């Protein structure tokens, strides 16, 4: 990619300042008008363990975490051991030496090595905590990380803690600079120069979903903690009360979704957020929401499964559960996000769709987006429309499940005279009275299925990337879309005829759009991060397309190069 598209990986022991280093570098780049896309892996342990934080930055839009790093900054021996096979000719390697806990083997030819005595310097300053400041000073000199904005970021962070702490950290930063200054720079890597600052925010996927919830007019949230979704609840718990709403933590996910259903019945815009194991527990209540036509919204931040699986790892394997996970015929509207911006915008959409269609709406995010921070144009609240459910006008006798032209029956809030009715999971007539007659069940199922059908024509977040005929089309979903965008662009630049199709409305499936796209491609490749090829399965079941699945499930996202290699093999 472009030379000023740079990837810096900071690695070390969790708690050693790896995360804050990454955060500072990312914020400094964003302040300098650059785009950022960060990617992190955490230890599953609470304390210690290997942690990695990678910042990709460029003046142009970034769609994914990248192929590998250009610059590795290793805080300890483990970080070196884990990453040394990736030290390819051309990469730059900054490491804690001398005085650190390791001495690297012979550095491969072509690797640009910069030893910086981080631990030693920190020890001399009598503060182990300043190790990462030393590293950052060195990085800023070596790779042109904007010093002005970096200092602004440090001041913003440490200024709150008092002058003394701020000055101490700035001192450590200066020490790091001094250590790097005499080193001869042999590599070509440098962060692009500052451009005019853009009106952006830097936010993680989980915080973004929380922000989207606020922008979407959320009033009630019920949570149960689970990795990697809990930050959504934290964000909402912090900010929703400011807007007059509340969050409660329930005793389990069954209770969470039950509370959401109850609050929604009683007239409040409500949601929850969970990951696979929690979603599995919610299946029965989601069926109830479908049957009782109650708007409920939930975000599922997917993680490695099945069972407890790989809680901190990335996977896209809940599509089956999200679409069909309930007994009886009980579909929902299922959306999936590509990036952090989508986490904001599509959370609003999901809340709106739940209100409009009076059914469960699931928004799928994933482990790599949960913690990835990205630059996003600052959302303007005025740009978001908040949709409210269709309400009874008070005329005539109220029937909760009245047959209407569009299948959507007006709702009424408890407390309204004349609107009394029952919301029930039993099959029922228009008034809500239990009925097990064949024609009632058939008519009501047709009503409930029919009302969500038009969503494919009214809500079209799906994108086609490229025009005309192609030798191969990539169809993919979730955060893998970002990888496909870059792979498609690079393949095209190399002369390949490739296109991309990026569905974000997963269910109901916009079959016509799929078919129209496939008609322009000789072959269809479907990369996704799960074992079975779940999207491939739905494509085979619902369309006439014969997809070629391309699945990985190693706990990490695809890289663009990995996708490009596969395309070249089969094209």
């Amino acid at each position, binding site marked *: 990619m472009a030379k000023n598209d740079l990837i810096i990986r900071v690695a070390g022991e969790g708690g050693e300042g790896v995360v804050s280093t990454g955060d500072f570098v990312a914020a400094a780049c964003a302040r300098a008008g650059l785009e950022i896309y960060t990617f992190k892996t955490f230890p599953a342990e609470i304390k210690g363990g290997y942690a990695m934080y990678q910042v990709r930055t460029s003046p142009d839009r970034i769609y994914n975490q990248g192929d590998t790093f250009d610059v590795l900054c290793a805080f300890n021996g483990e970080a070196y051991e884990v990453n040394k096979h990736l030290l390819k000719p051309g990469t730059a390697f900054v490491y804690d030496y001398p005085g650190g806990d390791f001495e690297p083997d012979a550095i491969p030819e072509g690797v640009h090595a910069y030893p910086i005595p981080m631990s030693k310097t920190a020890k001399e300053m009598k503060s182990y905590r300043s190790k990462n400041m030393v590293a950052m000073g060195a990085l800023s000199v070596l790779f042109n990380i904007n010093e002005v904005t970096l200092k602004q970021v440090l001041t913003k962070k440490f200024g709150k803690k008092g002058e003394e702490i701020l000055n101490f950290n700035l001192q450590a930063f200066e020490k790091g600079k001094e250590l790097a200054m005499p080193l001869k720079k042999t590599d070509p890597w440098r962060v692009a120069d500052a451009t005019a600052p853009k009106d952006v925010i830097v936010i993680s996927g989980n*915080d973004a979903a929380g922000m989207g919830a606020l922008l979407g007019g959320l009033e009630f949230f019920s949570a149960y903690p689970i990795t990697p979704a809990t930050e959504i609840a934290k964000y909402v718990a912090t900010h929703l009360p400011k807007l007059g709403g509340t969050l409660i933590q329930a005793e389990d996910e069954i209770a969470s979704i039950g509370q959401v*259903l*109850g609050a929604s019945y*009683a007239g409040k815009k409500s949601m929850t957020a969970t990951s696979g194991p929690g979603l599995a527990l919610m299946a029965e209540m989601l069926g109830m929401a479908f049957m009782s036509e109650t708007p409920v919204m939930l975000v599922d931040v997917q993680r490695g499964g099945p069972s407890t699986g790989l809680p901190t790892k990335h996977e896209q394997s809940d599509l089956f559960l999200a679409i069909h996970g309930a007994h009886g015929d009980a579909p929902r509207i299922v959306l999936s996000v590509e990036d952090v911006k989508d986490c904001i915008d599509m959370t609003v959409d999901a809340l709106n769709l739940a209100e409009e269609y009076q059914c469960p709406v699931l928004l799928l995010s994933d482990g790599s987006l949960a913690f990835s921070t990205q630059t996003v144009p600052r959302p303007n609240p005025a740009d978001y429309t908040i949709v409210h459910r269709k309400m009874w006008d008070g005329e005539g006798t109220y029937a909760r499940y009245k047959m209407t032209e569009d299948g959507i029956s007006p709702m009424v809030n408890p407390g309204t005279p004349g609107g009394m009715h029952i919301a029930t999971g039993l099959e029922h007539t228009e008034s809500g009275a239990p009925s097990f007659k064949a024609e009632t069940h058939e008519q009501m199922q047709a009503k409930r299925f029919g009302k969500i059908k038009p969503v494919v024509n009214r809500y079209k977040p799906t994108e086609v990337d490229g025009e005309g005929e192609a030798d191969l089309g990539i169809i993919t979903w979730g955060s893998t879309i970002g990888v496909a965008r870059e792979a498609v662009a690079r393949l095209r630049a190399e002369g390949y005829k490739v296109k991309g199709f990026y569905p974000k409305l997963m269910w109901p499936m916009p079959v016509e759009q799929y078919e129209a796209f496939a008609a322009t491609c000789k072959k269809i490749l479907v990369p996704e991060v799960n074992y079975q090829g779940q999207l491939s399965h739905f494509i085979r079941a619902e369309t006439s397309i014969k997809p070629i699945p391309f699945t990985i499930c190693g706990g990490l996202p695809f890289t663009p190069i990995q996708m490009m290699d596969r395309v070249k093999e089969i094209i």
Partner: protein
Amino acid sequence: MSVAALHKVDLKPKDYKSEVSVVWCPGCGYHGILSSIYKSLAELGVDSSNLMAISGIGCSSRTPYFIKSYKMHTLHGRAGPVATGAQLAQPEQAVLVTGGDGDGFSIGGGHMPHMARKNVNLTYILYDNGIYGLTKGQYSPTSRPELKAYTTPYGGPDEPMNPLLYMLTYGATYVAQGFAGKPQLCAELIKGALEHKGFSYVNIFSQCPTFNSIDTVEFYRELVREVPEGHDTSNLGAAMELARRDAEGHAPIGLLYKVNRPTLDERLAAIVTKVGGHKGYDINKIIDLASP
């Protein structure tokens, strides 16, 4: 429940009957409980449109169908969470949960402690018939081991639980017990529960003549003893002592415990007040916190 906040109306018990006809077996104790509910609603002058009756699944969970009100018939064991959500969404309205011993203490047992300790402002009436009625007679968490039932043809292997001790332990702020054969007492206890601000729990013994052959009306008449005059309802230890039953194994009926403590909705409202929250708060201030 916030009956005080309700718009008071002047109605007769029969006015709370819905148009749905009652489906319970003849001789079922639930008929008596239902009439006690109608009576207490009428005596309090509860406005139906400000009442939400919510249940799970079971014969007892059919109750909301028979009451004129807003209502939800949910999933087996899940009335509690759904009612909690509804109550928090509309704290000015009254919420009444009805359900069985299986619904509340078996499948829904994970929710009970939390409604009690959080002091969710609602009334929970548990129809305790020592059996799963709807599924045709399996033993329940309150069945006696002597009961030979559908899945316990040789008697039960389990020790029955004590719902009153359970509720007292977990912090319910109103705990009472009645017997369907004493509708006047039940009506009084339910009325007290509806008037109580906080989580109020009423356990009502009720015969299931169809499936529970041993917990008969006669058995319950012999089992129950009125809470002694002079019992201090604010004394948790004394309430627990009564709930443990006396040396002859008699079960207390009447009000055992009643105290006041802030409710969950009050505590949540206090958080909103603490942060100065309101509908007109400028969301831009929250967005700007994410600027780099």
